[in-house]
């Protein structure tokens, strides 16, 4: 059967390094095992590279259910234990509305409207700076 919906990632999601930040771009429909693999890959990359921040671009993600929400929260928690801060960038408005109704407000997760804003947020503060800075700065 071919009902033509977009396939997303299976297997490994590419992790790019930009200076002191690791950048991950999620797109399409993410399978559970791919999200879990990413969690493991990121923890290893943070530990081996010693970066101070991680940006996860989710502007191409059409839905976040409780499983993916939990994985994102766990990625941020794990990164924090490895001395890196995580910013989730570009959440679609429909996804945000749905997450709130689902009951998943993910209070520990820092967000930014764009990847640029996320990188700026991570690089403009020292590694030990407050971790609750308001991320919604307008350019």
């Amino acid at each position, binding site marked *: 059967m071919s009902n033509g919906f977009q396939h997303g990632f299976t297997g490994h999601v590419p992790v790019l390094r930009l200076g002191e930040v690791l950048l991950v771009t999620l797109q399409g429909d993410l399978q559970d095992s791919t999200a879990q693999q990413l969690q493991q890959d990121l923890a290893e990359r943070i530990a081996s590279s010693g970066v101070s921040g991680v940006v996860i671009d989710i502007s191409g993600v059409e839905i976040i259910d409780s499983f993916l929400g939990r994985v994102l929260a766990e990625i941020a928690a794990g990164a924090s234990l490895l001395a890196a801060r995580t910013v989730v960038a570009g959440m679609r408005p429909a996804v945000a509305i749905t997450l709130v109704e689902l*009951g998943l407000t993910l209070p520990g997760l820092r967000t930014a409207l764009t990847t640029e804003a996320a990188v700026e947020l991570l690089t403009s503060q020292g590694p030990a700076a407050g971790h609750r800075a308001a991320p919604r700065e307008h350019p």
Partner: protein
Amino acid sequence: MPSSTAVEASLPIRSEMDLAWVRGHVRQAAGLLGFGLVAQTKLVTAASELARNTLVHGGGGRMDSAEVTRGPARGLRLVFSDEGPGIADIERALADGYTSGGGLGMGLGGARRLVHEFTIDSTPGSGTTVTVVCWASAPPPAFGGR
């Protein structure tokens, strides 16, 4: 292909890959029925939660989808069924924070909040059926309440 074929389907839920098929089908069917972007996102998210329950807690099963109409309103009905162990205490399973395996405990109760109509029928030992309906526009008032 007439649109009814693309809305009506019976999909197996036996693997993680099947969850992706379910999401893709629901997105496409909701689009064909004229759901707006937010309504579509809510319904696909609810379907993902319910399909994962069918897979993880029900040991696999299926999802049947069909168009429903009530007066001028068009909607999508999704039925998730399994022949797993069933749910002994449905009220507890619907409560936020209740989890029997690995999640955040938002699955069932969260899915209920994302749809217009939600019914669950479960018999310990013989399986669970969850039926949800979402309307493409404001829900028709026939049932009142939720």
